């Protein structure tokens, strides 16, 4: 049997296992795990304990970012800081819809742009923004769509775009020249999205909103809310300005510092352990998915399935490759999350480089499309997170329907960036 046939069989076993396990009403995370186990068995690797555990390590550092960032936000919420901010924003800007939109776009883009994770955007500012959007007369599914799309764009936005970084590292290309090719589409598409989806609303009924919103503790003030964020950004900026004079703090510890400041400044007494335990419980699907995807990617590599997928895609006719980016990138993201960058990003960028396209702009275009997959099954990780954070009770499909128009805009923009990357190479400033 050729390697093609044997790996196709292994892939089929993995897919069938996944589907059967899901039909048995078992969670996505565990289905991914069992699919990996079945793949290893079918591939003749037995139960490869070393590879299972090594795969589980793949996203450990990213998991630490999620846990600490969410802990920070949960502490801020418990301290009344979130309610305080929403009341403040609504009181100040309730008459100026456009200003509010631009402000919201910034608030949604910054956390993900700095951390590279759309989930951090959803967790840090998504909840607050959802409430603001609600009082602007935007229905929950529509608000969820805005937050999801902007969270995805924030993850792709510079300075930290993990897809671009992981792929660039995979092809031994320095992570330079990406700033404008990522920033311009992300900002433009974010603004387009919020204005398209949010325009039809109604003026803010300030009195009603303030009456319905939870009260902020009397002793809460702007300083107490802003200081933890300032501490976080101070660490980030200090690391950028004096990278060679300061020790490496790492994002997780920066979030821990921000969480500590929030805890100390809180006007109400916070049960730190309780909030921590609930944070882990709240993040279980996310951490579980990341861990199990890591295991799955490792087993796919071990058995050759990863290579099968990669070689099948890069050997398609070029026009088909361009046209299929709109499907292949989101789907690969939906299955592998950041694992899609090494699995598909690397061979695709090398392919584009071989045919004379600009790898930086092409990769930036791909990076804008990738996050759309975070709303799709099997993982749908950021989509699910957004639905929960927004507190949407309508069906998940409603949110997806609202995502459609911005998603098409994003796909068209990203694909055009790939096709015309050579012409757009001036954006890299290199």
């Amino acid at each position: 049997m050729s390697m093609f046939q044997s790996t196709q069989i292994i892939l089929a076993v993995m897919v069938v296992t996944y589907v059967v396990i899901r039909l048995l009403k078992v969670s996505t995370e565990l289905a991914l795990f069992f699919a990996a186990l079945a793949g290893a068995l079918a591939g003749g690797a037995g139960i490869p304990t070393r590879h299972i555990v090594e795969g589980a390590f793949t996203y450990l550092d990213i998991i630490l970012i999620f846990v600490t960032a969410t802990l920070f936000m949960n502490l801020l919420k418990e301290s009344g800081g979130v309610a305080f901010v929403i009341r403040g924003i609504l009181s100040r800007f309730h008459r100026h819809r456009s200003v509010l939109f631009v402000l919201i776009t910034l608030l949604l883009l910054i956390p993900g742009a700095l951390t590279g994770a759309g989930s951090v955007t959803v967790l840090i500012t998504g909840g607050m923004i959802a409430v603001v959007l609600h009082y602007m007369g935007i229905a929950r599914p529509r608000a969820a769509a805005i937050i999801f799309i902007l969270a995805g764009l924030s993850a792709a936005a510079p300075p930290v775009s993990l897809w671009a970084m992981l792929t660039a590292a995979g092809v031994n290309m320095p992570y330079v020249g990406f700033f404008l090719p990522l920033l311009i589409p992300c900002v433009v598409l974010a603004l387009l999205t919020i204005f398209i989806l949010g325009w039809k609303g109604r003026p803010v009924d300030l009195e009603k909103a303030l009456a319905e919103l939870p009260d902020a503790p009397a002793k809460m003030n702007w300083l107490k809310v802003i200081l933890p964020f300032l501490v976080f950004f101070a660490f980030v900026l200090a690391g950028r300005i004096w990278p060679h004079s300061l020790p490496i703090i790492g994002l997780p510890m920066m979030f821990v510092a921000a969480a500590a400041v929030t805890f100390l400044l809180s006007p109400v007494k916070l049960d730190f352990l309780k909030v921590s335990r609930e944070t882990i419980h709240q993040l279980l699907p996310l951490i579980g998915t990341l861990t199990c995807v890591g295991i799955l990617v490792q087993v796919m590599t071990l058995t050759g399935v990863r290579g099968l997928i990669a070689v099948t895609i890069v050997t398609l006719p070029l026009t088909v490759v361009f046209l299929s980016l709109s499907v292949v990138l989101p789907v690969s993201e939906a299955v592998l999350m950041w694992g899609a960058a090494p699995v598909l990003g690397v061979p695709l960028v090398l392919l584009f480089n071989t045919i004379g396209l600009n790898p930086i702009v092409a990769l930036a275009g791909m990076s804008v499309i990738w996050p759309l997959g975070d709303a799709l099954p099997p993982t749908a990780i950021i989509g699910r997170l957004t639905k929960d954070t927004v507190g949407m009770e309508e069906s998940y499909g409603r949110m997806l329907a609202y995502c459609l128009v911005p998603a098409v805009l994003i796909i068209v923009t990203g694909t055009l960036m790939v096709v015309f990357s050579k012409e757009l190479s001036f954006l890299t400033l290199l």
Partner: protein
Amino acid sequence: MRVNVRSLRKAGFLLLGAALMLLAGLSFYNSRHLKEPVVLGPSVTEVKKLSDYFEGLEGTINDANVYVLEGQEPGGSVLILGGTHPEEPAGRLATWILAENAVLEQGRLFLILSANRSGTTVTRLGGAYPPDYSIETPWGERTFRMGDRWSNPLDQWPDPEVYIHYPSRQELAYMDIRNLNRTWPGRANGTLTEKTCFAIIQMIKEEKIDIAIDLHEAELQYPVISVIVAHEKGQDLAAMTSMMISGMGGFDLGMENSPHALRGLSHREIGDHTDAISLLLEAPEPMLDATRGRTDRKLLLEGKDEFVVKAGEHGLLFEKIDENGWPIDVRVGRHCSAILQILELWTEDHPERGVVVTSVPRYAEVIENGTGAYLHDHRKVSPARLRFE
């Protein structure tokens, strides 16, 4: 009763988890602590440590052995780095052959077999690498650690959210702060990986190294492959080497200039920051290709892969590949021949700074006899002539 069932179930899951952790943990421990013997060759006069050149590395995992080979006749000094990227085994094995066999007639040869020792103790997450591999020898097997491209997080943690290279301030992917070929020229008060580069730079200065050769392997889909990458100081030497090897060495070896825009690489920074000529050799390693199929010891050693062949048929590769693959002996042999050629050309042009080496096999010999033929039985050597990596 229900509570008991639940407790039992939890205990069961925990036991399963514990069993997985125990088995995997043992495997991780064993590969991190696997000892790789080095039989000191006839010309090895001293085995130094990197910390002899920079105290900051003392007691760390990256305080690598520096094998010093000296000839009767004075001459120049050449440094060869293996294990900059420990996931590229041909580079390490070539330095092993040199350490165990080379006879120096003139000058000095400095060998580092594990330039990033930390990186030899871990395998790439998601890469499904085998933990080790064995080379057949006439007297049995010699087992080596398979490594990673990056230092082990157990030795350097955490990573920043973006790596800013010193001193250029170029921004690189966060994990490349653990990539020894992105941290040159290094810093005395930097991370472990940066300190390692700093120590080697100190060594190059102190020992008045004339040429530093960094041994690598690359995926076939990567444009910089089967080449010698040269700093501008070494352009003539590299061009001549490429010509001689491609003409008479039995294989094609291209030549590329070290780009100025790429920072932190040995061929750029060693040349910029020391008097040495810096060169980097790349051999093809199909196991690094993203399109590779089943990943195992066989692929590592034989370099045969149907999927990579298919990518080649579609014109996606920068090096040819057929059903014969790229066996480890071919890759090691390329490095051996290229090194010998560089030394010969250098000695011709700089007789007073010459480095003359004999008893090292060339490409055709390594292929014919196998790499293992040049690894000596460490069980029959006195402890004084034995070291471990």
